[in-house]
């Protein structure tokens, strides 16, 4: 960040105007894309204040915050809030514990550990929508290998994603399969970049390893843990691909997370106003989270670049 060049006298080959305009010219395309995003965003805000159904264009009209007020007494809306929060909390919680565990297992940079950590990247590189299809094949009641395994354990009628009581468990399993490596890889990089001195001192003094872990490793790793969890939380609360490919929000409304609900609201019930209002609420949640995340991430980035 200290590398800004504006205090260095520049060779006088270009005109004053060009020099001042250069940064703007260079970032113009990015600016245009930015505007391209902001227009639909403000349109969505506007839609959320309308009574706007594609199939009933005659009823279109400005209704202020009625879409939002209607949510308050709407059981389907509260179900969406609940399902999204449970989904995000459950997936990120499991992924964090598992990812931390695996990172600790692979901490030593041996050849074997490095190969293992590369292989673990593969699920993360699989498109989540396709990963959901893979698990759908594996949990098929007729020939799914996982259905066979659980039947060996005595669950002969285990229905995975098509049973309301196990649907959340099944999509969580897919999410964990895809995204645990993300947390693992961040924490592994964090672990390996920690200063050696405190650990050597602790080893010399014969400090017990559980003490080292809870009093040295964990506190020093905390910025990485927070960054990784916030990042995942932001993604997970908006999960669409896995849930949509697996069950389209079903069975019933068991997995109606925000984005699946608003997708169906838009395309199935053609209720644009309601769909937009739902998305604005989701946006507000992610906006709060992302501001915390960006601050945290910039701090970490500054440190990584400063120390490099």
């Amino acid at each position, binding site marked *: 960040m200290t590398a800004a060049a504006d205090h260095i006298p520049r060779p006088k080959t270009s005109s004053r105007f060009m020099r001042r305009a250069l940064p703007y010219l260079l970032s113009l395309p990015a600016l245009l894309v930015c505007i391209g995003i902001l227009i639909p965003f403000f349109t969505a805000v506007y839609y959320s204040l309308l009574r706007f159904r594609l199939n009933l264009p005659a009823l279109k009209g400005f209704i202020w915050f009625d879409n939002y007020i209607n949510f308050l007494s709407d059981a389907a809306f509260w179900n969406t809030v609940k399902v999204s929060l449970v989904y995000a909390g459950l997936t990120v919680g499991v992924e964090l514990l598992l990812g931390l565990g695996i990172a600790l297992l692979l901490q030593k940079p041996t050849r074997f550990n490095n190969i293992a950590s590369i292989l673990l990247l593969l699920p993360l590189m699989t*498109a989540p929508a396709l990963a959901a299809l893979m698990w759908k094949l594996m949990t098929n009641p007729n020939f799914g290998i996982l259905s066979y395994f659980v039947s060996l354990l005595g669950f002969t009628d285990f229905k995975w994603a098509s049973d309301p009581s196990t649907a959340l468990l099944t999509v969580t399993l897919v999410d964990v399969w895809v995204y645990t490596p993300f947390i693992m890889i961040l924490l592994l990089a964090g672990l390996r970049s920690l200063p050696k001195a405190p650990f050597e001192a602790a080893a010399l003094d014969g400090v017990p390893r559980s003490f080292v872990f809870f009093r040295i490793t964990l506190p020093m790793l905390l910025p990485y843990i927070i960054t990784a969890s916030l990042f995942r939380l932001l993604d997970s609360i908006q999960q669409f691909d896995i849930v949509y490919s697996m069950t389209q929000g079903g069975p019933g409304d068991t997995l109606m997370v925000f984005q699946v609900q608003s997708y169906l609201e838009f395309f199935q019930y053609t209720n644009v106003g309601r769909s*937009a209002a739902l998305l604005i609420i989701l946006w507000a949640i992610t906006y709060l989270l992302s501001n915390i995340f960006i601050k945290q991430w910039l701090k970490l980035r500054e440190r990584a670049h400063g120390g490099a």
Partner: protein
Amino acid sequence: MDHTSTFERIVRGILIGLVLVFFLFPIFWIVLMSFQTNETILRIPPSIVFEPTLSNYSALITGRLETTAGNLDIAFMKNLGNSVFLSVASVLVSLALGIPAAYAFARFRFRLGEDIAFTLLSFRFAPPLLVLLPLSLYFKQLGLTNTYIGLIWVYQLICLPLILWIVRGYFEDISPDIEHAYRIAGNSWWQTFRKIAVPLAMPGIAAAGLLAFIFAWNNFIFALILASADKQPVTVGALAFVTASGIQYGQIAAAIVLSIAPTLALALYAQRYLVEGLSLGAVKG
């Protein structure tokens, strides 16, 4: 850490083994399925001993799928081609737009730059449908629905923030003195940018480009909303497969294998760039 006991090493080995089984078994199993006919897939108990067949792949490549309900024409190869074209084109456009902007953000302190960088970054985390649903109505009016141009434009939402933020970090790490010395020697700004800055930031550009490609390839929701069957990439196309009734399970598996193979191969080939890219430059590997 050096005096780990044999017992601990065995426990660690077993745990790592279990982790690898959990994360690699699904890929292994789907690959196996893709070489089987329905008869061997439906065996109980399942077995890994079977006569491998290439019929699933050949059916996909010719586009004629024999089902219980007769022959079905599914242009899966078209989906695969769409994926390649959309991802490559989006990354190229994104590099052309993103590298100069990243350079401007790193070298010149200007307010607008920070604003653009943050708007793009915060929209990286906004719900994609928030932008996509109004956009789908606009696209209808503009005639951009189901066109490659429209899709590549929207894919910039995925690629551009990645490239801007990763490459910017690399430009910031280059000492301006090097560029300054080159300028003093009588070279223009453009030459300096091309001959000094871009080559020095190449590892970052490669990491960002690779990651942008993978994310573009893996994207599902954009094409689901803005593309019809003939422009859809594999992620959306494969879903149509599963819902079409009577398709051989082996063919679904083969389609999945073909769809995930390119990103997995890229990841293995260029894994050293991935860690850096995945953390948006937050952790230097």
